């Protein structure tokens, strides 16, 4: 039971962590709460289903999945880029309140854009495909972990193979991001811009490019989370971005907003807390969503800099 809840928590947590990275990177550079980031995750989930359902490629799963990821990541990257260019860039010197209101506007716009074009009902993967994906990964993992064909067994917990895929993919993506931020030139520019935008500008860093890249990378990570969630649940709805976005933001604040490792860690902690509380406290599953908000309020009141945050720079 405990192991089961821990695995569930890690699965949800790594999704939160991936989304939280987008929040935290943008916040680190622009001090903007990109409220629309949850919708980017929702777009990613939709794109996965659109790709599989409407572009009927008769490929084996091993060939199809990378294409799905690439498709979703490419388009969400474009969306992130476009949103930044059209909505946030003109407001870079405006009061922060206007930027936040714009972000809420973008979020409402994207939700309804998807609702109008894709319909207000749930959009579903065909049963066949989600079954195929499950079987494919089960076969893959059964070489290492005991399985009965559709589920895996670790420490007495029944696990869907996709949960394991979500956790592993998230870890890989985070390692890639870490490499990108610490080892590449543009990553260095990103860190510099996050430290001090004006100074970075003065020493010749192309701040606009860095900000665009930040938005694109954040969107790509969000899209990856969206694709995996779409595969895991087999259905998406245009409203999923809102709650996931708020929770991911909680995760980012929990870890210390602006701090990339904080976001990863915060996501995992939030996911674990949520699923442990919902699984172990009887009757608490209905109240699951409240936990995230209460944690958010408590952190903001008692430790607004988060777990890892050192800098509580009051940038007005």
């Amino acid at each position, binding site marked *: 039971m405990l192991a089961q809840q821990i695995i569930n928590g890690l699965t949800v947590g790594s999704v939160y962590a991936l989304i939280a990275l987008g929040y935290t990177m943008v916040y680190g550079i622009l*001090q*903007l*709460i990109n409220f629309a980031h949850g919708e980017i995750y929702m777009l990613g989930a*939709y*794109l996965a289903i*659109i*790709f599989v359902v409407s572009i009927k490629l008769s490929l084996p799963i091993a060939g199809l999945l990378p294409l799905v990821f690439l*498709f979703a990541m490419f*388009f969400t990257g*474009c*969306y992130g880029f*476009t949103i930044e260019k*059209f*909505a946030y860039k*003109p*407001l870079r010197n*405006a*009061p*922060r*309140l*206007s*930027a*936040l*209101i*714009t972000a*809420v*506007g*973008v*979020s*409402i*716009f*994207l*939700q*309804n*854009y*998807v*609702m*109008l*074009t*894709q319909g*207000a009902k749930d959009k579903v993967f065909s049963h066949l495909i989600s079954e195929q994906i499950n079987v494919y990964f089960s076969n893959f993992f059964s070489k290492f972990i005991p399985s009965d064909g559709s589920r895996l067994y670790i420490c007495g917990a029944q696990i869907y193979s996709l949960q394991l895929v979500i956790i592993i993919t998230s870890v890989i993506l985070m390692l890639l991001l870490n490499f990108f931020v610490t080892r590449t030139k543009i990553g260095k520019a990103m860190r510099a811009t996050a430290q001090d935008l004006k100074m970075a500008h003065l020493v010749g860093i192309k701040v606009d490019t860095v900000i665009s890249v930040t938005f694109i990378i954040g969107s790509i990570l969000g899209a990856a989370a969206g694709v995996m969630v779409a595969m895991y649940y087999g259905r998406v709805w245009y409203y999923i971005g*809102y709650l996931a976005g*708020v929770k991911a*933001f*909680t995760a980012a*604040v929990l870890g210390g907003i602006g701090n990339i490792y904080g976001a990863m860690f915060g996501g995992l902690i939030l996911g674990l807390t949520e699923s442990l509380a919902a699984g172990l406290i009887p009757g608490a599953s*209905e*109240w699951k*969503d*409240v936990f995230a*908000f*209460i944690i*958010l*309020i408590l952190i*903001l*009141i008692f430790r*607004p800099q988060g777990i890892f945050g050192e800098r509580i720079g*009051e940038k*007005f």
Partner: protein
Amino acid sequence: MLKSLFWTFWLWIIALPFAGPIKSIYIASVVFILSFLRFIKFPAKISSFKDNWDDFLSKANEKIPYGYLIVRILFILSLIIIPMFLDRRTNNILVDCGIYALLALGLNIAVGFAGLLVLGYIAFYAIGAYTYALLSVHFHIPFSICVPISAGMAIIFGILLGLPVLRLRGDYLAIVTLGFGEITRIVLNNWDSVTNGPNGILGIARPSIGSFVFHSPKNYYYLILAFLFVAVFVFNRLNNSRLGRAWVAIKEDERAAKAMGINCMSLKLLAFAISAAFAGVAGAFFGAKATHVSPESFTFFESALVLCMVVLGGMGSIPGAILGASCLIIIPEIFRDYFGNSRMLLFGIVMIAMMRFKPEGLLPYKRRNL
């Protein structure tokens, strides 16, 4: 030109997976046409309507004795007389306008005066509505007594929330209030024994004063009009008081305000509480008018809608808040058949466009010069 073409093509590409090739052509072509707007030279002042109106008022005041007063009285009389000749449906819409105008005025105190972005404002509305609903259903307490109680409950929750979180910086505050709004909705949804869960509370008593029971849209209209008059009066008094000045100072620069000896914390709390009280009153009225409350009336969308009204009308401005509420309620009603589901999409666009092109709103609040 080339730039427009490029962006149009770009939007067509990214709209492709969602809208399909044909619909994305529509979307992209709309954007293409709109992109030519930037070649049109707009007159330097778009907000000339308000200036004209002010001009008209001041001229009227010069030409006719008490002209200013007469124009105002005529306006108020028209508000009172015109609805007598309107049908049920129109009056119903006007009542909705009134409720939202009350909410927008209340939110304006927090957002427009004190600069506190509240994203979960609808929670106070919900608290007001449920307070009245529970008191009326279980204890049969009349409307006129419940309204102050609802306002009081909203104030209490406002202070309970405000005390710890008002220390936070603007955008953190926004997220915390959003969280509070969601918590309120989830609690209303899940606390079956008290709130009857998603079904909500039925059979709430209609508004009444003494033995007179308000029962038709026309009656509601006059009641909400009376509320609005009181609200506008209170708002105006606050605006012109020391308090209003202090709020504006806090909004402009909190550190400077503090340095001038303003007690920022308690004044922000006061703004929060008064703002909540407006929502509580509006909520009680809503519950009494609808005779039924359920959690689904109090979603984040409503909060965003009220915020949109404030932003559209102009932060801190009374006519702005009322105009914003009227626009966002009446226009979708008129175009219900055309817009249908897409009105939320338009709200989103309006919010983005307003912040981009006219952040001060349609009827901006003019700061008095000393």
